[in-house]
């Protein structure tokens, strides 16, 4: 029972953190940048690992956040050099990810960092990797780190909500008003890096992309207000975590994989049946208009 609880809580924390940030990525048409960051933080994690020789999550977070910002910076550099944006993203993140793979495979004997675990995560082990302070068992470490990350994300987005909103909608006006658009851009990217690292141990570098994009894209179809979109994104993510977990238990399959599959199914439902932007609603509206004019 506790086992179920910790896994669903971990999944929900991943979903909430990614879901909030994902909304801004989707609205700024930067979903692929989220994908890029989640992969290219790998060398940062590996280097932090080699330097400290331990799975000290704080240092790994710093290493990954730095790599995340470098990723965004490099992508922009290539774009300004005249390369297409999708090609820039593809080049930067695969190159950095590949370096990460080399670093980890070369040091695999010395360090306790498993490539499979980095890529796909192992949320089932969450319960046993506990945080111990002064000999007290404080509960699963992942829950702590994810919880702190969620609080940081909530605090930053809450404090600067109007800036993030106007930078997403109309960056030209934002800049003209004196809002430091570049600062908020990198702040958002830094938060995405942070949440990726906090999540990668439980869901892995690949599936966290699903949590960044899918619930946010689902929420986008369900509402016309940004604040509600953020809320729906978190709810869809939480529902995917719980639903995906029981689905995985029933199938005896990968938990993280099932969670993202559940998110994908929820997206499909919204895509088809959303009263605002769903395919069915649009189709029936067109039919109604046709029969009115006929």
């Amino acid at each position, binding site marked *: 029972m506790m086992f179920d609880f910790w896994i669903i809580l971990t999944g929900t924390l991943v979903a909430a953190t990614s879901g909030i940030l994902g909304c801004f990525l989707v*609205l700024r048409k930067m979903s692929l940048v989220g994908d890029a960051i989640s992969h290219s933080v790998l060398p940062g994690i590996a280097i932090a690992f080699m330097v400290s020789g331990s799975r000290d999550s704080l240092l790994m977070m710093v290493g990954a956040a730095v790599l995340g910002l470098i990723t965004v910076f490099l992508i922009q550099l290539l774009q300004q050099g005249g390369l297409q944006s999708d090609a820039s993203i593809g080049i930067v993140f695969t190159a950095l990810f590949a370096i990460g793979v080399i670093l980890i495979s070369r040091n695999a004997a010395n360090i306790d960092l498993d490539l499979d675990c980095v890529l796909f995560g192992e949320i089932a082990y969450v319960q046993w990797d506990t945080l111990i302070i002064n000999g007290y068992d404080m509960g699963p470490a992942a829950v702590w780190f994810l919880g702190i990350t969620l609080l940081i994300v909530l605090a930053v987005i809450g404090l600067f909500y*109007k800036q993030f*909103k106007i930078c*997403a909608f*109309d960056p*030209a006006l934002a800049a003209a008003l004196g809002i430091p658009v570049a600062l908020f851009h990198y702040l958002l990217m830094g938060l995405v890096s942070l949440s990726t690292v906090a999540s990668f141990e439980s869901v892995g570098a690949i599936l966290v992309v699903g949590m960044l994009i899918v619930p946010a894209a689902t929420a986008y179809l369900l*509402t*016309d*207000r940004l604040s509600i979109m953020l809320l729906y994104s978190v709810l869809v993510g939480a529902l995917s975590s719980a639903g995906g977990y029981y689905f995985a238990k029933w199938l005896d399959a990968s938990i993280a994989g099932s969670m993202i599959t559940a998110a994908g199914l929820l997206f499909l439902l919204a895509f088809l049946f959303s009263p605002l932007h769903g395919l069915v609603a649009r189709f029936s509206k067109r039919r109604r208009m046709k029969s009115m004019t006929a």
Partner: protein
Amino acid sequence: MNSYPLEVQNLTVAYQKKPVLRSVSFQIPSGKLIGVLGPNGAGKSTMLKAVLGLLPKVDGEVKIFGKPYQEQRKLVGYVPQRESVDWDFPTNALDVVMMGRYGHLGWFRRPGAEERRIALDCLGKVGMADFAGRQISQLSGGQQQRVFLARALAQNAQLYFMDEPFAGVDATTEKAIIGLLHELKEQGKTVLVVHHDLSTVKEYFDHVLLLNGELVAEGTTEDTFTPQNLQRTYGGRIAMIQDFAAVPIEME
């Protein structure tokens, strides 16, 4: 405020090393409606963006009421081109207008009842009060343009920059914009409008600024909007130039 609303000295702007604007210098008189005219690629929008600090200057100096723009942001209102934003963004008309107040709110204050009141008031001035709660993608092009104008009004500025507010709008919106421009002028405000339709220039603007990579001419519409100047601005590209400019001048 004895200084000019806008003073541009030797402004040069380049896109990836290709100069778009070369050594443009002019001063804008206070309380006028000014049309910024020129062919496509003449650097009209570029000039606006460079003045607002949205594009880096290669060279030159810009002063707003005698000081650098960075110190005078609250005196300046900006209406970007309508196509520059994604109208599918999940927000409504009132919310967009409230964004005009963000510059006055500082870093941490959230828009509250006062901003709401101002935004509703501004929506009313452009005839859009009934659409305050409407999702912005549900508005027509003209209505979207009026929302942008209301947002600029909410900035409560002294000097306004408008980038093609008349582009692709319906007659109602065109009328609403003109009414608004005159109201701003009566309040002693200065408005720079990037404009394309040469047939309405004489009717709308007191002053014109003719651009073609460099400044061709600047001055009162009467003295500056002449067939000779238009020929120099547009070259042979518009055969109808004669009709727009010459006829009314001859009639006067």
